[in-house]
């Protein structure tokens, strides 16, 4: 299965085609096709994951052996390693020596030599190499460059395979009830399948060109699904906004990939680019340019601050689509790309060094500012959308501080509880006549929707980082990654404080949604009821995952009596080790579990839950109407309600500035400054001009021009008559001319 993993996206793509072509005529109007194929894809993903886990347990001695399953036809790194390994491949030391002789003295070969020399000094873990499997076929040749298309299977892509297919399957099931009876039901399911297929295609990409294709496909699918109910103007506007905002970042992606192509010696292969970046054979400045361009792409796709504005608007789409976008497909694509090309960012932005890099700033700011925005939303889905923005900020910050595994781990756990929250919100609105307004139309849903309530609260607690749910482990790993208080250079302390503040806000706004939606008295005017099993079963599955997903990566120092082999399982399976990934030599380290930090983070989360609850139950009277009593808080609230005026900045200031004031200013400048000079020059010129006009212009020039004009006019008048409008006369002229031409050719050639 590891070599034939292309079947998984192909299954989903096939499902798209079949649903589109035959969906309407099958019973159930097409959802069975999608569900069947995505189930098959999910099962195959699990099989792949199982094989990969088994494979990651095997030990290999050398880098050449580790890359033995990389098709040499698509990766020059692998081809060179295979050549230098020679026939002795399999005998560890010789192969390593061969690799070193050939100038491939990367840290892998070096550490290998050391490992054999020093023997027991090296821990067993450090001799472990990841063994990615790359298969490819020839795609096209252009300008002497062979471009391939294929699959790259390693821990990271296997993780995404499972997450994407699982969430997609649950979303498919959920949707059968949620959009049941919709006017474009079949179309909807077709695009769900295509969305899944695109994301799978993206995560399995073996080269950067293929990544662009997947990236754009994901964008198109999100456009189609956000605008699913395009008859209403706001929905189609939201779809357009998502698409256009993403285009801004796509430019960055394109420029970044092209830069990488040229600086890495005309290579698209991810493994090759990573190896080149890691070995330091690409200049630092070029890597920095490439990584900054790529960050622009990440900012738009993964909703990072200032380009996040499309994400809340994307809530216009059907709720299951939001769940899919926010948990598995689309927004995590940016995170995935950074993780995939990590050496580029690691070297380009000096992540291991002491300076603060752009990723951390973007991530921390997004985490905090996104979380703050979650407070002022009336719409439960928009709160969740800002929550996603904030959590993606956590992941980007984690990648920025060098906590690669923490970021991917958080991606994994976040997918589970955020999908659960979104589907829960969908269940709520399903019961409330498709309203998402939790302030005016909900309340007291705890009694009528016990299953939705239970699953929503579990997922919310997980998001808040309450021990021992999934969110606790992953968030804590990110916080530990920032280095805590006493980190050697302390560069990321600001990031840790911002993330802690964001964690507090997260807990508080999630409590707010729970309060408005589930507690208190019902404020709507309908008769809500619990949703059917097709909605509640996915919720239950996801909430179970939201509880247990965190145990995949229990820190070594905090096992709570679980067997030692369980510890850091996720890190062992998912994290790449080898010449294509930063190692200890480049300063890539793992943060230790920090008990004090975990305690503080949990306290922050608990406080974030307790304070709003106390406030809502009237125990904190000094907070009531704070925003209307204290000017400062009123000011803050106004800023938040206007989403930091970013939409205003984009549409009114930037677009408006270009449209009106800039035009006005240019006009003013034109009138007063330029015209002043021109007038002065003009007056003196005018005197000269008059003379020239009288004699030269009127006499000589106009005379000539007039003559030409008259001739042209009269000849035109004559020629006009030939335009009779009779097509046959034209044909006669045409044939006559052709005959004449033929005669000339006969004479000239024949003569």
């Amino acid at each position: 299965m590891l070599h034939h993993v292309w079947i998984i996206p192909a299954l989903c793509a096939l499902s798209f085609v079949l649903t589109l072509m035959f969906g309407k005529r099958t019973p159930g109007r097409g959802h069975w096709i999608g569900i069947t194929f995505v189930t098959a894809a999910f099962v195959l993903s699990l099989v792949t994951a199982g094989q990969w886990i088994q494979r990651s347990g095997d030990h290999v001695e050398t880098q050449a052996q580790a890359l033995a399953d990389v098709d040499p036809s698509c990766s020059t790194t692998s081809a060179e390693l295979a050549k230098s390994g020679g026939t002795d491949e399999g005998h560890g030391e010789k192969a390593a020596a061969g690799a070193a002789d050939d100038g491939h003295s990367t840290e892998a070969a070096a550490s290998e030599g050391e490992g054999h020399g020093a023997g027991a000094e090296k821990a067993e873990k450090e001799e472990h190499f990841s063994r990615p499997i790359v298969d490819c076929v020839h795609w096209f040749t252009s300008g002497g460059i062979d471009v391939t298309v294929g699959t790259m299977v390693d821990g990271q892509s296997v993780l995404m395979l499972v997450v994407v297919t699982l969430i997609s399957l649950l979303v498919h099931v959920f949707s059968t009830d949620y959009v049941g009876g919709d006017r474009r039901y079949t179309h909807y399911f077709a695009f769900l399948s295509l969305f899944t297929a695109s994301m799978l295609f993206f995560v399995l990409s073996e080269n950067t060109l293929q990544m662009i294709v997947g990236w754009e496909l994901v964008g198109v699918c999100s456009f189609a699904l956000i605008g699913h109910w395009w008859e209403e103007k706001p929905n189609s506007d939201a779809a357009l906004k998502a698409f256009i905002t993403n285009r801004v970042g796509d430019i960055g992606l394109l420029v970044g990939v092209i830069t990488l192509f040229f600086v890495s010696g005309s290579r698209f292969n991810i493994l090759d680019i990573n190896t080149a970046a890691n070995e330091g054979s690409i200049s630092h400045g070029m890597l920095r340019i490439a990584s900054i361009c790529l960050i622009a792409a990440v900012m738009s796709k993964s909703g990072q601050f200032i380009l996040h504005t499309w994400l809340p608007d994307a809530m216009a789409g059907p709720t299951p689509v939001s769940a899919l976008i926010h948990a598995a497909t689309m927004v995590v694509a940016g995170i995935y790309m950074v993780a995939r090309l990590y050496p580029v960012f690691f070297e380009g932005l000096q992540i291991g060094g002491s300076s603060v890099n752009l990723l951390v700033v973007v991530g921390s700011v997004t985490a905090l500012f996104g979380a703050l925005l979650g407070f002022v939303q009336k719409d439960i889905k928009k709160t969740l959308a800002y929550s996603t923005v904030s959590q993606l900020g956590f992941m980007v910050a984690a990648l920025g501080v060098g906590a690669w595994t923490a970021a991917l781990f958080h991606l994994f756990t976040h997918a589970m509880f955020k999908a659960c929250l979104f589907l829960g919100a969908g269940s709520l609105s399903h019961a409330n006549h498709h309203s998402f307004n939790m302030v005016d139309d909900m309340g007291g849903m705890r009694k009528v929707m016990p299953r939705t309530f239970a699953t929503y609260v579990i997922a919310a607690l997980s998001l808040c980082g309450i021990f021992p749910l999934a969110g606790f482990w992953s968030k804590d790993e990110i916080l530990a990654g920032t280095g805590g208080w006493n980190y050697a250079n302390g560069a990321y302390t600001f990031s840790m404080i911002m993330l802690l503040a964001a964690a507090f806000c997260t807990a508080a706004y999630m409590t707010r949604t729970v309060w408005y939606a589930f507690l208190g008295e019902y404020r709507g005017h309908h008769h809500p009821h619990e949703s059917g099993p097709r909605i509640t079963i996915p919720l239950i599955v996801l909430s179970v995952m939201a509880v247990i997903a965190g145990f995949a990566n229990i820190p070594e120092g905090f096992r709570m009596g679980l067997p030692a082999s369980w510890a850091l399982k996720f890190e062992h399976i998912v994290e790449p080790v080898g010449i294509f990934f930063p190692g200890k030599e480049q300063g890539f380290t793992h943060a230790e579990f920090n008990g004090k930090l975990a305690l503080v983070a949990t306290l922050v989360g608990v406080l974030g839950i307790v304070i709003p609850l106390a406030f809502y139950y009237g125990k904190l009277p000094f907070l009531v109407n704070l925003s209307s009593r204290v000017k400062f808080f009123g000011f803050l609230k106004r800023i938040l309600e206007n989403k930091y005026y970013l939409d205003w900045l984009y549409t009114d200031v930037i677009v408006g500035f270009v449209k009106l004031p800039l035009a006005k200013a240019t006009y003013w400048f034109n009138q007063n400054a330029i015209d002043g000079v021109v007038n002065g020059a003009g007056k003196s010129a005018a005197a000269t001009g008059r003379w020239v006009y009288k004699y030269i212009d009127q006499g000589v020039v106009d005379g000539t021009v007039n003559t030409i004009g008259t001739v042209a006019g009269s000849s035109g008048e004559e020629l006009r008559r030939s335009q009779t409008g009779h097509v046959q006369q034209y044909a006669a002229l045409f044939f006559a001319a052709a005959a004449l031409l033929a005669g000339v050719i006969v004479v000239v050639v024949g003569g």
Partner: protein
Amino acid sequence: MLINQFLLLAAVLFSIGVYGVLVRRNGVLVLMSIELILNAVNINLVAFGAQHGVSGQVFALFVIAVAAAEVGVGLAIILLIYRNRHSIDLDELDELKG
């Protein structure tokens, strides 16, 4: 076999076609005459193809395909003209007169 006979036949067909295109007032007949011209070309192509290799035949096939498309479009135009003006007399269609 001499090629002259084919060329002669093609020339005759071509001339008949040209004559039809130039003097017929009925749009459909003009289209038919165009077909004659195209087929005259086809005969040339096939005739030369028979002597110089297969590419002539291939071109003739292309011409036939294009001619079919052309007739489709032409007949559609004439049909619409007829619906609008109740006549397909080409002499009456002089709206582009200069």
